[in-house]
C-alpha cells in the first residue's frame, strides 16, 4: 500500500517534467483551470493542438501505452497518468484526441486488419488527422443498439444512409468510426456492422449543434448515400456490436489525473473571498461543512481512480467499477458549481468574465455540467451497470430482445 511513486515512476516523472520544462510554458497556478466543455472554435486553436501533438508524438511523449511499432512507448497506464499530471502543470493546447486516441485507436488495434492498423494508427497518433465517433443517433442514445443508420452492400462497397448526433469534433475531423445497421431483419444486436469513414467523402454533411453554454463542440452528421469501401469495414459483417463494445469499454477507463483537485482550490479561494453576514463565507459553519464534504468526495474519487490505475498497471482489466468515477463525479461537479454560484450571491447570476468572480468559471461549469451527466453513459445507465455488472443484480426486463429489429416499437416522431 504505497501512494508514492515507485523509483521507476519517479524517474519517469522527472524525465517527463524535464522535457515539458524545455518545450512548454508553465501554467499560472492562480489562473482558473480550463473548462473541458468550452470549445474554442478558432482555426489557430486547431492548428496549435495538432502541432503540439505531433511534437510530443515525434519525440516519444504521446500515446505512451501504444505499441512501439505504432509510435507508442509500450508503457503502462500509470505512466500515461503521470504524463497527464505533469502536462497539466503547463499551458498547452486543449486535448482534441481523447476520443481518437483513448477509444478509437484501441478499437482499431483490437479489431483492425494489419493493413488497417498500418494505414491509420501511427498517423492517428501524430495528430495531423483527427478522428471522431459516429455512434449515437436522435433515436438511439442510451439505447445505442437501437440505431438505424443503414449500410447496404453494393459489390465491394457499402452505401450508408442515416444520421448521427453528438459527434464531438466532427466539424474538424478527418475520419470517423461508425456503427451501422446492415441487417434490419436480424435481432437488434445482431445486424450491426462497423466502418471507418472518411469525413470528407461526398454525402457527409456536418451541422454543429449549439449547446446550452453557447459552444458548439458537437454535431449532427448526415450521411446521404455515402460510399465506403469494404476494406474500411472493421470486424465481420454483423459483428459491429462486439466491435462497438470495445470502443465503449475504453470509455469506462475513468482514471483520475487529479483534475478534480484544481476545482477544490478555486472553490476554497472563492469561499475566502465571498461574504456572508459581512464575514468571509469560509467562516460560516454550513459553508465549512459543505466544503469538507466536497473535499472528501473529490479525494475519494481521486483515490478510487488511483486504485483502478494500480490494479490495471498490475495486469487487471479495467472493470465496470470504473463507472463510479463518472457516476459520482459528474453530479458532484454540478453540485459544486451550483454551490459556488450560491456563494457569489447576486453576482452569481452574471456571466461577464470581468465582473463575475473567478471570471465566471463556476457559471460556465454549471452550464456545462448537465452534459457531463448525460454524455458517455448517463447517471442512470451507469447505475444500471454498477448494479448489474458489479453487484450481480438482475438485468432490466427487455421487450425488444430476440425480435427482428424492424418489429421493435418506436416512439411518436421517430424516423
Amino acid at each position, binding site marked *: 500500500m504505497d501512494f*508514492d511513486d515507485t523509483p521507476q*515512476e519517479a524517474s519517469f516523472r522527472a524525465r517527463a517534467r524535464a522535457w515539458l520544462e524545455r518545450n512548454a510554458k508553465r501554467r499560472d497556478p492562480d489562473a482558473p483551470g480550463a473548462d473541458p466543455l468550452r470549445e474554442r472554435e478558432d482555426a489557430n486553436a486547431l492548428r496549435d493542438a495538432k502541432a503540439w501533438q505531433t511534437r510530443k508524438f515525434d519525440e516519444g511523449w504521446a500515446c505512451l501505452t501504444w505499441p512501439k511499432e505504432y509510435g507508442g512507448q509500450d508503457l503502462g497506464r500509470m505512466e500515461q497518468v503521470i504524463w497527464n499530471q505533469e502536462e497539466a502543470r503547463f499551458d498547452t493546447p486543449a486535448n482534441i484526441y481523447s476520443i481518437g486516441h483513448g477509444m478509437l485507436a484501441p478499437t482499431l488495434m483490437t479489431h483492425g486488419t494489419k493493413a488497417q492498423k498500418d494505414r491509420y494508427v501511427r498517423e492517428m497518433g501524430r495528430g495531423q488527422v483527427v478522428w471522431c465517433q459516429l455512434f449515437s443517433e436522435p433515436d438511439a442514445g442510451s439505447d445505442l443498439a437501437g440505431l438505424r443508420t443503414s449500410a447496404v452492400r453494393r459489390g465491394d462497397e457499402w452505401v450508408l444512409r442515416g444520421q448521427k448526433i453528438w459527434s464531438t469534433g466532427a466539424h474538424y475531423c478527418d475520419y470517423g468510426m461508425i456503427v451501422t445497421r446492415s441487417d434490419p431483419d436480424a435481432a437488434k444486436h445482431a445486424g450491426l456492422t462497423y466502418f471507418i469513414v472518411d469525413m470528407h467523402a461526398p454525402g457527409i454533411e456536418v451541422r454543429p449543434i449549439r449547446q446550452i453554454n453557447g459552444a458548439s463542440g458537437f454535431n449532427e452528421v448526415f450521411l446521404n448515400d455515402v460510399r465506403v469501401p469494404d476494406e474500411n469495414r472493421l470486424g465481420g459483417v454483423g459483428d459491429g456490436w462486439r466491435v462497438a463494445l470495445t470502443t465503449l469499454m475504453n470509455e469506462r477507463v475513468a482514471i483520475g489525473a487529479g483534475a478534480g483537485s484544481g476545482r477544490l482550490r478555486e472553490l476554497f479561494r472563492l469561499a475566502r473571498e465571498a461574504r456572508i453576514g459581512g464575514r468571509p463565507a469560509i467562516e460560516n459553519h454550513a459553508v465549512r461543512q459543505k466544503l469538507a464534504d466536497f473535499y472528501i468526495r473529490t479525494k475519494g474519487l*481521486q483515490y478510487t481512480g488511483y486504485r483502478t490505475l494500480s490494479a490495471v498497471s498490475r495486469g487487471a482489466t479495467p472493470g465496470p467499477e470504473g463507472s463510479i468515477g463518472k457516476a459520482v463525479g459528474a453530479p458532484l461537479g454540478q453540485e459544486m458549481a451550483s454551490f459556488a454560484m450560491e456563494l457569489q450571491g447576486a453576482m452569481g447570476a452574471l456571466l461577464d468574465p470581468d465582473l463575475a468572480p473567478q471570471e465566471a468559471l463556476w457559471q460556465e461549469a454549471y452550464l456545462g455540467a448537465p452534459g457531463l451527466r448525460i454524455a458517455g453513459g448517463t447517471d442512470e445507465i451507469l447505475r444500471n451497470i454498477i448494479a448489474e455488472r458489479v453487484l450481480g*443484480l438482475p438485468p432490466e426486463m427487455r421487450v425488444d430482445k430476440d425480435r427482428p429489429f424492424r418489429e421493435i416499437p418506436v416512439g411518436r416522431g421517430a424516423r
Partner: protein
Amino acid sequence: MNLEFSDDQKFVQKTARDFLAERSGLDACRRVLESPEVAFDAELWKGVAEMGWLGAAVPEDLGGAGLGYLELVLIAEEIGRALAPIPFGPSVYLATEALLHFGSADQKRRFLPRLASGDLVGTFALAEGTGDLATSAVQTRFENGRLRGEKLPVLDGGSAGLGVVVARAAGGPVLTLVDLAGPGVTRTPLQSFDPSRPQSRLAFDGAPAEALGPADATDAIRRLLDRAAVMAGFEQLGGATRVLEMTRDYALGRYAFGRPIASFQVIKHRFADLYAAIELARSNGYYAAWALSSGSDELELAACAFRAAASDAFELATREMIQIYGGVGFTWEYDCHLFYRRAKLLAAWLGTPSAWREMLIERLEAREAA
C-alpha cells in the same frame, strides 16, 4: 504507486475473516446485546488475544505480534464486519496506542504485555456529557497524582481495567492512566444505543492516577484520535460492506410482482449509490492507512476525510438495509438493527462526522496559512 495490500497482509485478513465467521457470528453480537449483565464475549476476547491481534502493533519484546498498521486495519475491518462484541477498539486503538506512543519505558513494560495478552482490557475517556470532544472543554482535573471529575459516556468503561483518561492539569490537557477497579472510581452502566457495546459513566473522586506522555498533551491527544479514527474507520467499512452484501442477497431472494425485488430499477440504483459511497470511503481509507503506516504528515487530513466518509457510508448502508428488507427489517428478530445500532454508535464515538469535517477545514486553513 501500488495500492494493493501484500499477500501476507491479505492472508492476515483472510485468517481473521475465517476465525470471526466461526467464532463471532451475529448471534454472538445479539447475545451480548440482549444480556445487560454481559459486557462482552469473554471467550471471543480470549480467542482474539490468542490470535495475537490485541498486540498486532506492539513490538514482540513487549508481548506483541510485531505486525504493522496495515495488518491492524485489515483486522479492524474484519472485527467491524463481524460486529464482534468485544472491547477491541478502546483497548487496541486507544489504550494500547497511547502507551505505545506516549508511555515511558517503565509504563510500556508494566502495561503493554498485559494489554497484548488480553489479561488487561483498556479504554479511553474523553467526553464529559456535553458531547464536545475538544480537549479545551475538559473539566476533569489531575492534581497531585489524583483525578477528580466525571466522564461520560465511556465505551467499555464498566469492564475495562485500565483507563486512559484525558484530564486538565497545570500545564494543559494531559493523558493519565487509571486503575478503573481501584479506589476513587465509581462506575455506573448507561443505556447504550448499541447494547452489544456497553457504555458507562465514570466518576473520579481522588482516584490515584499517573501522567502519561507530555505535560501539554494537546497535540498528543489529537494524534492519538487521528490514528484511532483510521482504525475505527476500517471497522465501519467492514460493517458497511457486510450490510451491502447481506442486503443484496436478501433482495435477490425476495420476490414481489413475480420477480426479485433486486430487479426493480429504483432498488438497483439505490444499491449502486450505496456501493459508490462505500467504495469512495474505502479509497479514502486506503490513503489514510498508507499515511498511518508510513508516518506521512498527510495523516491529519486523511484521517478526517476517511472518518467522515466511513461514518456516513456505514450509516447510509444500515438505513438502506432496513428499507430494502421492508417490514421484517424493522423487527427485533432480524439482524438489521444490530448493524443500525452499531453504525450510530461508531459514528458518535471519537467525534461525529461533522466534527471531523470541521477539523478537516481547520487543518486545510492552517496549511494554507503556513
